[in-house]
């Protein structure tokens, strides 16, 4: 066994069967000929148990960016709606007043394998039944205004 590939094949075969590679005859033969390869094996054996303790790093996907943007928009609308509801109505409507937002709803839905996850933003707040939305999520947004004075 001379090549690095064969060494790793032996290491992987042992790990696939959840055996200690150091106790594997083929790995031992390789290490006997190339003791320097022990370094990488020890690094791997040190890092594998850390997988379960490693802080999770989620990749920022375009969907995540879009969802974050939509959520920010939703929160902004919610704030605007709450302010609009609490402030006294102007007696004289301003020109081109688009009207008050009387209701809105932003919903990001992901369906996979018969299961559905969603994040909903509406005047009642933000609700999520799962934070783990994937790339295949779909966003729905609706807004309803009072009539205003636009033509």
């Amino acid at each position, binding site marked *: 066994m001379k090549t690095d590939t064969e060494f790793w094949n032996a290491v992987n075969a042992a790990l*696939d069967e959840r055996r200690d590679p150091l106790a594997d005859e083929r790995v031992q033969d390789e290490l006997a000929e190339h003791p320097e390869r022990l370094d990488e094996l020890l690094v791997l054996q040190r890092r594998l148990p850390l997988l379960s303790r490693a802080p999770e790093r989620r990749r920022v996907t375009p969907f995540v960016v879009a969802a974050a943007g939509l959520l920010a928009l939703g929160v902004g609308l919610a704030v605007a709606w709450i302010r609009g509801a609490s402030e006294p109505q102007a007696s004289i409507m301003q020109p081109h007043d688009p009207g008050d937002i009387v209701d809105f709803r932003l919903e990001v839905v992901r369906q996979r394998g018969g299961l559905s996850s969603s994040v909903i933003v509406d005047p009642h707040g933000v609700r999520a039944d799962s934070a783990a939305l994937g790339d295949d999520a779909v966003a729905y947004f609706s807004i309803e205004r009072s009539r205003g004075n636009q033509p």
Partner: protein
Amino acid sequence: MQPFGAGGGKRGSVSLRLTHQPKRTAGALDLEPELPKLRALLGKLAPAREVDDLVQEVVARALRYRDTFDGERELGPWLAKTALHVYLDHRARLAREGPVEEATERAAAPDESFEERELVANLLAKLPSVERDVLVRFHQRGESVREIASALRIPEGTVKSHLHRARKRLAEEQP
């Protein structure tokens, strides 16, 4: 237990050139030049305080089984493999007696362990998503290759390929 060559005089002053009659070639089992390499190999596996004892055990075992050594082959690999067996036996003995300080644990002091966890997290994030998924499912969640193949709807051979590539990246990546 006294380290090999220590005790009465300077370390290494004891001659290790021992005459033996191997199966094919008569010659000497010249262990002394191999001792630094043995010490380095075992130093990667065991705590420093145990290395001298382990080297001594390797030498004792080499002498005990010298008749099995093929004199036409190099002594280094034969001794290195003997050293691996000695280490595994030593580790098994310690495991029977109590908690074992694995090489993997010994190498990671608390601070280093924190840094290592950060490093592993970064390495995981850099892996292609399918490799990361397969690696985490197998080594973190304990799923079998078959279960992963079924969940991801890919052949078991493909799962292994992803797993093997991910392990190699995890081993090779430097901080």
